């Protein structure tokens, strides 16, 4: 195990060490409803949104298909699908895992779980309201900020409730040291509402005049992609790599570099060279976009050093494989982002589906894999039920990897072909469309594979919830209704979970009953006691 002089105690690895076994049960009880509900609805949005996204892709090449339905026209279906994926899936799943990580890292139960549950409810009213509005043509007209004026405030209110629960949990933490994931979560939880409100206020409610709307939109859309979704995913990756391997994070100093450069450069990006705005604004934004190489290298180096020598751990743990895939997707999409920010490149890729490739990588790769890994790790612990079948998660993983790979390759190469065509004025638009068609069909096929793979996760997750609920009803609710203790024992025996207790609320499952997990190395004894509280 590598321990650099800069390394802190492995908070994630130590957070639910056996000696703290008493706490996680309270903690799990407070987390159970909000996290599982948020994850359930996020996975349903993932499947619905992916299907709609694939359908929009197909319509791009079969324009006559269902052309009679106004609400299914490409210009409405595509943004509706994107919004379902961004706000239905990615944001919601990210929030669920953020709640879990904040409670675990802070060694405290979730504060005000009821806030989060009400927030979940409102959130899942606001998202369909917004998507319905887009399908009916009430869009604001700004990509990723399409939600009409009657939906965006509701989403904000829902967000505020969930974030309140998260931030109070952070404030009331028992463990004073803040781990890297907590920096990213604290930042993302603050950045999203700012970006969301400024975006909607200055684009839909009190729109600025003329091209200033484009400036606001570039800033805000980049904020959602980078400061919200990417930051959430980085928190997840930083949490699970040391947590599952048991190895401490390679360098806290490097993580600080990664975090602050990410915060500063990430916030300034978003405007493409050639945008009709004052030249200096565009230049600064382009420079910031290119300098995102610094956090990219810092994060990637930190992870790869932490993971070096952990090959066995990675091979044995499916959740960790998901996390590594998310890290790889981040490296790829951030690298594409750096490249396409550069003036010379964006000249050719600026209006092509290379940008779509980045969005697909972000949603399905960075967020999708990070969330997948987190779900396979934490849901069996929270629900006290294992996921079904060894094969299903593997199909999800390899199917997802293959699908995302195909989609990315198709979109990037298709985008380059498109860019080459667009910059060659002798080619007509029809010729360009024809030359990109096979690549876009490849990516549509990839997206379909990806959707099916994600379907495996959604079905498996619902299976876990059903099993947990049934066990809960059989073991607790029914016996309580009948006043019979004997029956409780009987059904418990039948389900083979004699020690599970009522709904898993009274006693935890023995560790061995959980999803197979690589043997965790004991937390390095030298680091724990030596750690200073309130270190600056």
């Amino acid at each position, binding site marked *: 195990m590598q321990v650099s002089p800069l390394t802190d105690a492995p908070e994630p690895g130590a957070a639910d060490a056996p000696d703290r076994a008493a706490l996680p049960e309270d903690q799990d009880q407070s987390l159970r409803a909000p996290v599982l509900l948020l994850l359930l609805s996020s996975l349903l949005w993932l499947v619905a949104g992916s299907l709609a996204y694939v359908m929009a892709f197909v319509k791009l*090449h079969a324009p006559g298909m269902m*052309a009679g339905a106004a609400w299914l026209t490409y*210009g409405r279906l595509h943004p509706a699908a994107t919004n379902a994926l961004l706000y239905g899936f990615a944001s919601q799943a990210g929030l669920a895992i953020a709640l879990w990580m904040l409670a675990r890292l802070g060694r405290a139960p979730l504060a005000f779980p009821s806030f989060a549950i009400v927030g979940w409810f409102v959130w899942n009213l606001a998202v369909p309201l917004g998507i319905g509005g887009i399908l009916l043509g009430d869009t604001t007209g700004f990509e990723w900020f399409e939600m009409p004026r009657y939906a965006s405030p509701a989403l904000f209110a829902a967000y505020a409730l969930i974030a309140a629960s998260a931030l109070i949990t952070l404030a009331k933490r028992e463990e*004073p040291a803040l781990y890297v994931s907590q920096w990213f979560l604290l930042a993302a939880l603050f950045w999203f509402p700012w970006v969301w409100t400024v975006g909607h206020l200055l684009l839909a409610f009190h729109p600025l*005049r003329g091209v200033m709307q484009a400036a606001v939109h570039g800033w805000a859309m980049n904020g959602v992609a980078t400061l919200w979704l990417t930051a959430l995913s980085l928190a997840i990756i930083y949490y699970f790599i040391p947590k599952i391997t048991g190895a401490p994070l390679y360098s806290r100093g490097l993580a600080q570099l990664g975090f602050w450069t990410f915060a500063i450069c990430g916030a300034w990006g978003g405007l493409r060279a050639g945008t009709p705005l004052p030249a200096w604004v565009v230049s600064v934004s382009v420079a910031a976009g290119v300098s995102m190489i610094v956090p990219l290298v810092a994060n990637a180096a930190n992870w790869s050093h932490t993971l070096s020598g952990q090959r066995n751990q990675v091979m044995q743990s499916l959740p960790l494989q998901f996390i590594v895939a998310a890290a790889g997707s981040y490296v790829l999409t951030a690298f594409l982002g750096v490249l396409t920010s550069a003036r010379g490149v964006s000249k050719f890729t*600026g209006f092509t589906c290379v940008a779509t490739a980045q969005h697909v990588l972000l949603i399905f790769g960075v967020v999708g894999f990070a969330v997948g890994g987190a779900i396979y790790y934490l849901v069996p612990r929270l629900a006290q039920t294992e996921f079904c079948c060894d094969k299903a998660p593997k199909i999800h993983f390899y199917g997802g990897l293959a699908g995302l790979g195909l989609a990315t390759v198709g979109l990037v190469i298709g985008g380059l072909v498109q860019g080459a065509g667009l910059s060659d004025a002798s080619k007509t*638009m029809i010729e360009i469309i024809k030359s990109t068609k096979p690549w876009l069909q490849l990516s549509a096929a990839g997206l379909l594979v990806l959707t099916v793979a994600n379907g495996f996760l959604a079905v498996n997750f619902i299976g876990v919830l059903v099993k947990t609920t049934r066990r809960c009803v059989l073991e607790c609710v029914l016996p309580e209704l009948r006043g019979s203790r004997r029956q409780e024992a009987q059904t418990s025996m039948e389900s083979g979970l004699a020690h599970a207790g009522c709904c898993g609320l009274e006693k935890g499952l023995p560790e061995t009953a959980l999803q197979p997990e690589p043997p965790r190395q004991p937390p390095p004894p030298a680091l724990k006691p030596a750690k200073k509280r309130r270190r600056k």
Partner: protein
Amino acid sequence: MNRAPLIFLGVFAALAFSWAGLVLAPQIQIGGQGQKLVQGGDTLYPARRSGMAQQGAAVYVSLGCVYCHSQQVQPREWGYDNARGWGKRRSVAQDYLFDEPVQLGARRVGPDLSNVGLRFTNETFFLEFLYNPQMHHPGSTMPPFPFLFDRRRIGKTPSPDALKLPQQFAPEAGYEVVPKSGARKLAAYLVSLQSEAPLFEAPWPKAKRTNAPPAALDTNAPPGTATNAAPATNASAAAATNAPTK
């Protein structure tokens, strides 16, 4: 890095700084823009759209045209937009003064539409195109918008507004295709998309070397005073560019 309030302050500063730089500062710089004179002419630019075209902009937004069509001509020295005839000069902030919402667009599945009203000046063309793009551009992947049209039985006299469609695209005998108001508005908006007037910060390219400073060609500096006594060669064309649509 163990104090949440300190991290919060840093994080707040990072975003506030970028917000001030990317939103606040340009707003102060160009937020107060108004109409100005075209270079070498006495027409104010940009002209306000007609009521029909203004309503057509809303149709454009609601159908999500922006996901395939940009409205921003790229700098001339990049070499392609000008060569495709999409615009004599690059787009600048001034062009979007009355756009609400501004639909810059980030993808070009279809052509740039900044000056589509100069390339096709006839609303009938746009109506036919919207009814079925294959009629004019076979192989196009633009979806048809049949829901913007009424397909109805011909009454006592055929509607004067009915589209005159070639056999291949025409409805069965006894029926006619009449644009609904949404289609008319959208067509009016598309015809109104003309943003080529030469401006101080975005003049037309000169055929031969002139005394115009070369730096002015690609600057997109904020509008200064527009009374630049440039050669008046383009004045009449510029005036025509801004002719209000019917």
